[in-house]
């Protein structure tokens, strides 16, 4: 393997990682602040992608599509929080899992009912398409570079929000002792709705950004949701920093594992067998990573001591 191919794969891993971060950030906030397991987070990702595809088809503008994805996912998140989720905070995790699983089914069939069963079209805008030449002779898609940039700036924005703003103070306070901040006069249910909508908007943004290079179709959110759960378990539940580091780790492990393992098996196996063994092992790699992290630090990399 050449060094150029290796660097390209590292970039791919980081790009995959930052998109996972957008999903995992919302999930970890909701879990950390409200103690809620939200399986329907993947549906919000799908809502964002479908809203973006619909607006892009109607207006032709990618920026408007992204704005629509943010708005639609945040609105869907807020409505779901007020109508359903609010009733679940006091219940145990099994009830939450059941109710949010029901939400997945409702969202999936609802979206299918509105948009039909066939995948929708959403493409990257002309000004972001095509490859760009990086120093060292690397040809890399411009859009993926833009994704890395957007993902990292949102991560920076979130850190600023959590550590420097009044809302961030309340979120952190809500994480450590929700009765106490309610007693101090903070409108806790409004805070929860805001946090939930914020997480939903990030998921919707990820759906729209990723939908443009992948496919916009019903059920697109669930595979990403599983990875996002792996990320927050690795990073430590409730920690934004953990979500970022965990996402990049999972992105790099998944991408580089998929490339390097078959190469490794090719050293002593024939081509076909090496490809299939390598691919099979590569798909387990992130779960092995998760298991190793959990053995070493059961609370996750940046999780508080539970």
């Amino acid at each position: 393997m050449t060094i150029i191919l290796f660097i390209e794969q590292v970039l791919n891993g980081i790009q995959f990682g930052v998109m996972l971060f957008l999903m995992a950030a919302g999930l970890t906030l909701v879990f950390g602040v409200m103690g809620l397991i939200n399986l329907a987070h993947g549906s919000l990702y799908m809502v964002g992608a479908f809203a973006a595809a619909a607006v892009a088809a109607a207006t032709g503008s990618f920026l408007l599509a992204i704005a629509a994805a943010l708005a639609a996912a945040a609105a869907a998140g807020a409505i779901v929080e007020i109508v359903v989720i609010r009733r679940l905070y006091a219940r145990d995790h099994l009830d939450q899992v059941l109710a949010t699983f029901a939400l997945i089914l409702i969202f999936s069939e609802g979206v299918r009912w509105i948009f039909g069963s066939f995948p929708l079209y959403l493409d990257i805008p002309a000004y972001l398409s095509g490859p760009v030449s990086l120093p060292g002779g690397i040809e890399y898609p411009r859009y993926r570079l833009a994704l890395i940039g957007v993902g990292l700036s949102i991560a920076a924005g979130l850190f600023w929000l959590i550590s420097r703003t009044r809302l961030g103070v309340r979120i952190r306070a809500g994480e450590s002792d929700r009765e106490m901040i309610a007693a101090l006069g903070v409108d806790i249910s409004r805070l929860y709705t805001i946090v939930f909508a914020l997480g939903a908007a990030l998921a919707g943004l990820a759906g729209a950004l990723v939908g443009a290079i992948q496919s916009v179709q019903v059920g697109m959110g669930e595979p990403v949701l599983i990875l996002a759960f792996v990320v927050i378990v690795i990073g430590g539940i409730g920690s934004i920093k953990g979500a970022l580091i965990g996402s990049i780790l999972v992105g790099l492990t998944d991408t580089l594992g998929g490339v390097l393992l078959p190469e490794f098996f090719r050293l002593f196996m024939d081509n076909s067998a090496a490809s299939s063994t390598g691919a099979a092992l590569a798909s387990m790699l992130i779960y092995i990573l998760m298991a190793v992290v959990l053995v070493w630090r059961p609370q996750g990399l940046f999780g508080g001591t539970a």
Partner: protein
Amino acid sequence: MRMKSLIAAACMAVAGAGAANAESKVKVGMITTLSGGGAGLGIDVRDGFLLAAKMAGNDDLEIVVEDDQRKPDIAVQLADKMIQSEKVDVLTGIIWSNLAMAVVPAATAQGKFYLSPNAGPSALAGKGCHANYYNVAWQNDNLHEAAGGYANSAGFENSFILAPNYPAGQDALTGYKRIYDGALAGEVFTKLGQKDYASEIAQIRASDADSIFFFLPGGMGISFLKQYADSGLDIPVVGPAFSFDQGILQAVGDAALGVKNTSQWNKDIDNPANKAFVEAFQAEYGRLPSLYASQGFDTANLLLSAMDKADIGDAEAFRAALREADFDSTRGDFEFAANNHPVQDIYVREVIKEGDVYTNKIIGVALEDHSNVYVDECEM
């Protein structure tokens, strides 16, 4: 044990009596995917099938449709329900090979007919073939073999091939390699359901491939084609029709234009049955038919042709009538090989844009009168 077999015998006697009372009526149970991810395929098969039944206007044909949600356990439950309480004579409709493997052997063992409008796993074509199982679409390997045939005629000598790491994906690469004579620049198995192909595209860029063969059905293919088009690479791509059917093309857009793909059917095959089908489908549903719709349509017409010749109560005669395949296929010539799988021409198509709609045009024949390699393993 004896009690059990007595009850079973009694049940079968009752079931037999039921069928006899119904005279020549044929009840069809369609189990197909109508919700969730792969629903587009099942909906097309159903619509094609129902259209043929409507056009024939045969009152003796009764159809029950149920949604398997692409889950093998649900498909099995539905099949049991249809056989035991609905008392269907014929089952059809399954899209996915893993669901077909869960349902078909049990159904045919109970004396029911199964007409496959899509899935054609090798296990049911070879050792697991059955006199009551008829595949009206293709054996799973066929379209990949045709892609290999096209690669030979196009002069490709160094192909990079990729497919998801699951049985149908492994069959796809085996099928391509069976016919393709050139060398391999690389062979990659992706994860099933993978949506990001940046890493594979980087490997293709680093290899010195002169062509790419890929089998990535559904959303996986959409992702791959869009990302490939954006990568700036310009190596010819060929694949089976599954990533280029009418439902998917609109989501891929310009990225698919000019790509070659192999299919046993296209809307421009020139015969009266196909013309009538394409017109009637558009008039009925307001969209262009896909190859899945044509398969559903042909399946219904095969069944109707057998109903004209024989009574379903006489299984032997009905089998003979099905085997004759005496119906006007949308594909033109159509006949069954010894293992009840089609012998047919497989075409090369190119993706074009007609007005605002992306669709396919036939540019040549990849393999003529193509059968399958499992015929000899089948003993009926």
